[in-house]
């Protein structure tokens, strides 16, 4: 399987990257190496969780997005926004104002993604009642988790519920609705406002479906400033023609931790943050978990409000979304409204299934079991020599990953700074060669004086700002 098959939303900006180790040491799938002073991402291991983006001190990890102007290629410009968007703004800014601002920015149709959760919560409960698939059922909601299971827990792929997440359901519905209204398919552009990188990867290279129903992705942090500007410069922005979203109040909380679990019967667990997810999935794979019916797992701490493209602090955003859901409940009780998406149930039933998710294990050291075993023996032998301190000075995240890279012939034992020091002392490695190895991993610049480095005396700009 070639690496080109996987589309990733996270890219390293080589101009900005100065080859530190923050991203490498935090990556949950050990997908990052440092070579010639720059971080490189092993595409077959990356799950687009965005941990690297979070920790980069110079903002060298970038999240791609579609050109905003591309929305104007379509006559009907639909923006599907997630409920987390409404948690980004202070309570004085209403959902209606946010919708009005999105229209002001050029969208003709504005629709909350979680309308899809009204349908999905029913469909998932039916799916589980029918005992389809393997137990415990794992939600397909978080694309980073789906990818994590594919690469690291291939035996669990059949536990993933074969239903598209609310985003795709909302898109399938909206497209059909516009076509039913007589809009030509080529005039419809459906865009998603994303709080994270994994959703971008999911749109650009979907798992379990042939192509995504989304035409483009706009990043939440990009649109945030623009929405704010529109609202600040039009304090009395006209919201009179805008309808309050008609989704159920529980669906507003769908993307929060427990948002799915709260909707289902049986024994359900909610897990958030990617390292927690790995710890749990290890145990689940070993059958060490008491019987559970359904598991909600999200890669970000506090789920989607913790996505890397959010602007507001995740805890504040969660609180606002919960308050909004509560207020919405009161609103619905005095203004009963139907979610129009539910009228398309038959169409959604036909178009919202996922194909079985395929494993793509990154762990296999060689497809030939014989060769793999001798490679592993060699790894264990190498571990006798490596110091086990996981310092990262070899440009790989751990001694173990260096040993594996050596066995795979993409690194050398002398890449280890401890081995190198010893070799120099024993005069089996010349000083010049040792210098060259350091240069190969960390680049020449890391050994030069540079007063503009983060924390150095002329580092007078905040690296987090462009």
């Amino acid at each position: 399987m070639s690496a080109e098959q996987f589309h990733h939303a996270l890219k390293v900006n080589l101009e900005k990257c100065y080859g530190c180790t923050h991203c490498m040491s935090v990556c949950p799938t050990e997908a990052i190496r440092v070579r010639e002073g720059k971080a490189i991402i092993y595409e077959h291991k990356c799950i687009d969780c965005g941990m690297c983006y979070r920790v980069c001190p110079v903002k060298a990890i970038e999240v791609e997005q579609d050109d905003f102007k591309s929305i104007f290629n379509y006559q009907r410009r639909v923006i599907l926004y997630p409920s987390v968007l409404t948690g980004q703004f202070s309570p004085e800014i209403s959902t209606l104002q946010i919708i009005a601002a999105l229209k002001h920015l050029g969208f003709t149709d504005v629709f909350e993604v979680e309308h899809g959760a009204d349908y999905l919560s029913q469909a998932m409960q039916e799916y589980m009642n029918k005992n389809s698939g393997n137990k415990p059922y794992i939600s397909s909601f978080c694309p980073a988790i789906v990818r994590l299971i594919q690469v690291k827990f291939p035996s669990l792929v059949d536990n993933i519920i074969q239903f598209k997440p609310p985003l795709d359901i909302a898109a399938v519905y909206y497209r059909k609705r516009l076509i039913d209204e007589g809009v030509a398919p080529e005039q419809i552009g459906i865009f998603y406002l994303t709080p994270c990188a994994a959703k971008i990867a999911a749109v650009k290279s979907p798992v379990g479906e042939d192509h995504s129903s989304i035409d483009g992705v706009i990043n939440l942090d990009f649109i945030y400033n623009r929405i704010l500007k529109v609202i600040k410069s039009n304090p009395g922005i006209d919201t009179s023609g805008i309808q309050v979203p008609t989704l159920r109040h529980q669906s507003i909380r769908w993307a929060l931790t427990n948002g799915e679990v709260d909707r289902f019967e049986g024994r359900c667990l909610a897990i958030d943050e990617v390292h927690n997810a790995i710890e749990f999935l290890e145990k689940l794979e070993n059958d060490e978990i008491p019987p559970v019916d359904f598991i909600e797992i999200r890669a970000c701490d506090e789920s989607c409000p913790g996505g890397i493209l959010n602007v507001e602090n995740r805890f504040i955003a969660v609180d606002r979304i919960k308050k909004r859901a509560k207020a919405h409940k009161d609103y619905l009780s005095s203004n009963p409204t139907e979610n129009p998406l539910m009228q398309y149930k038959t169409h959604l039933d036909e178009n919202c299934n996922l194909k079985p998710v395929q494993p793509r294990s990154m762990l296999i050291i060689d497809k030939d079991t014989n060769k793999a075993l001798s490679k592993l023996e060699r790894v264990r032998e190498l571990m006798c020599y490596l110091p086990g301190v996981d310092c990262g000075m070899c440009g790989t995240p751990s001694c173990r990953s260096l040993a594996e890279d050596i066995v795979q012939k993409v690194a050398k034992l002398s890449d280890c700074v401890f081995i190198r020091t010893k070799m120099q002392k024993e005069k089996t490695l010349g000083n010049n060669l040792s210098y060259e190895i350091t240069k190969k991993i960390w680049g020449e610049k890391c050994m030069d004086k540079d007063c503009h480095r983060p924390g150095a005396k002329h580092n007078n700009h905040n690296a987090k700002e462009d």
Partner: protein
Amino acid sequence: MQLEFKVMGGDFANAGYASSEIKKVLKQINIDPKIIKKVVVALYEAEVNICAHAYAGKVSVEITPEKISVEVSDKGPGIPDIELAMQEGFSTASPAVREMGFGAGMGLPNIKKNTDFLDIQSTVGKGTTLKFINYLT
């Protein structure tokens, strides 16, 4: 490949270490996940058995491309009637062990169910040695 692990009686917190390590190896050498699962379940049960019944034990594993052979030996009370112990639901676990969620009498039957070959040798008052094999292809 040879691997060895020590297991301490009563140390439920660390039960599962050997099976986790073995799982990592089997995943890396491209073994069918269904076979991996059986091995891991059997080994985990064996680890828990030592924790629940014995004073100390040792897990020795040999992996070849064809099969995985596991020997789990412990110093412990031994099993007086192996045939009885093989029956589902039969348990001699103490109330304390049961309170921790173990001791349902499914250990040995579960090991039997998940392995291709199982041999149990036990001497009352000395200990038990369990050997099992799973074919990897």
